[in-house]
């Protein structure tokens, strides 16, 4: 089922001198089985938004409805169930590993849900497979001796092992090199396609979001400034600039070229499509090589 937000507001430390309204009147729907990107400049309310979706924070006004249940009404066991359904992976999750053995760290969530040890084992095995962590090689290793990339994979496996229907990730590619980023994005695609997991990714790297997301939500100063398909949002160059977001280099290039060749579509998403746009617009000038120009 979708997640509905109706007029959601959130204020940190209300009625105090430090009162800070992080979100103001957010209404939107996160559809079942989609990959959706959430972006915006620092301090726009992205991380607050994420924490409202799994009940860590409850709205100070308005409602968040997950699987037909309004989160602010949940208590105790029901809240635990919500957290199982809606997994949240914080920024730099590798900083939060605390068990000594890799297996135990991944099994921590499932065990907390009261699953039988047999079920826990299967869940851990599945999560390790998804992350490409060989069980025999890794399960008995110490979490402290892993590289930072391996640690992040263990942390992600811990979230996946709870078999969430929705997976929320805060800046999951921060600090990863090109290879690590591609692995992670491929994993999210696989989860979405093969297991119908709904994925919500917070990132300020629009190129990462463009690579996997179907839709984008753009936050600014606690409000939804833009939403739509990735291409649709990339069509609002001025609005994005105003928000302080930088288009991926391909789209930035195409927008600049459009000033000279208006027929260019600056919202395409792949390198091949971008090359196609440039080829169509500039081909004429390159026929016969540059000496004829």
């Amino acid at each position, binding site marked *: 089922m979708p997640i509905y937000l109706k007029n959601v507001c959130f204020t940190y430390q209300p009625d105090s001198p430090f009162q800070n309204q992080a979100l103001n009147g957010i209404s939107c729907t996160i559809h079942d089985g989609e990959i959706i990107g959430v972006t915006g*400049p*620092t*301090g726009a309310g992205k991380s607050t938004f994420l924490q409202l979706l799994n009940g860590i924070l409850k709205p100070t006004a308005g409602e968040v409805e997950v699987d037909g249940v309004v989160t602010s009404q949940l208590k105790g066991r029901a809240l635990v169930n919500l957290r199982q359904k809606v997994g949240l992976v914080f920024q730099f999750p590798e900083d939060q590993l605390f068990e000594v053995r890799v297996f135990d760290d991944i099994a921590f969530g499932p065990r907390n849900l009261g699953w039988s040890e047999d079920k826990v084992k299967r869940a851990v095995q599945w999560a390790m497979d998804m992350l490409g962590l060989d069980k025999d090689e890794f399960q008995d290793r110490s979490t402290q001796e892993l*590289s*930072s*990339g391996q640690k992040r994979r263990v942390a992600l496996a811990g979230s996946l092992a709870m078999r969430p229907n929705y997976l929320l990730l805060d800046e999951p590619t*921060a*600090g*990863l*090199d*090109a*290879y*690590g980023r591609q692995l992670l994005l491929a994993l999210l695609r696989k989860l979405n396609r093969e297991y119908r997991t709904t994925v919500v990714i917070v990132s*300020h790297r629009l*190129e990462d979001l463009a690579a996997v997301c179907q839709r984008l939500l753009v936050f600014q100063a606690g409000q939804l400034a833009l939403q739509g398909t990735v291409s649709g949002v990339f069509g609002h160059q001025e609005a994005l600039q105003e928000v*302080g*977001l*930088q288009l*991926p*280099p*391909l789209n*930035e*290039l195409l927008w*600049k*070229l459009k000033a*000279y060749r208006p027929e260019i579509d600056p919202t395409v998403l792949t*390198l*091949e499509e*971008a*090359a196609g746009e*440039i*080829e169509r617009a*500039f*081909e004429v*000038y*390159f026929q016969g*090589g*540059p000496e004829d*120009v």
Partner: protein
Amino acid sequence: MIRVNQATFRYKDSLPAALNRISFTVDPGDFIAVLGPNGSGKSTLARLLNGILIPDEGTITVLGMDTRDVSLRPDIRRAVGLVFSNPENQMVASTVEEDVAFGPENQGLPREKIRQRVDAALARVGMLELSHRPLHLLSGGQKQKTAIAGILAMKPHYIVLDEPTSMLDAQGRKDVIQTLLELNRRENIGIVLITHLVEEAVWARRILVLSQGTVKMEGSPEEVLLKTIELNKLGLESPLITRLVAELNRRGFTIPPATFQVDDLVRILCRSI
């Protein structure tokens, strides 16, 4: 000059060396990018360059001073400033100017002199107007520029930056890189920029590619960044614009392959109109 000569460093005897027989030099006013995937030894290298870590084998000298010599360490740290990815780890005061003044105060400089140094450093990173601002009200980019100003106030010959933009948004990234370029060009401060982003390495005069603790590639951006296959093998990618140019050239365009920046490609394409 910073001279790294066959430097090897191990965190533990039982582990493979984090850096293995690394050699290179950083000339005065140089701009070197150290590019490498996660776990390649980049951060270890940053800490070796100003003597926070000491090589197990080989030597590192800064302006002729050997980092193994304990008595020279204050001079070495003043000559080579270090900026980390999370500026908050480096902040010690509550306002911008107090934070920048921390280093010169510790040096025991007279008040007047401290004032001059702080104002000059803040002006150089474009933060003078914000000098009274509490640190917690700064954006990530402004915090990182404050950290850089704190280093500048020590009058360094070199600044080593370890992934200085990894916690910043697009505007912050641009800001910090722009600041580094100006310091390098106008004031001849030597820069060692440690990063995993090829888009940032493009600005350097020379690129060193590190993988598994050794230098795998070395040269100008033109020499390093066009070697797509070699970079891929090391878990890195050539810049997106460079890959686009390769694709366009496959389709019959004749654009110089060493085109790295959006604006350069715009200029090349539109000059032909």
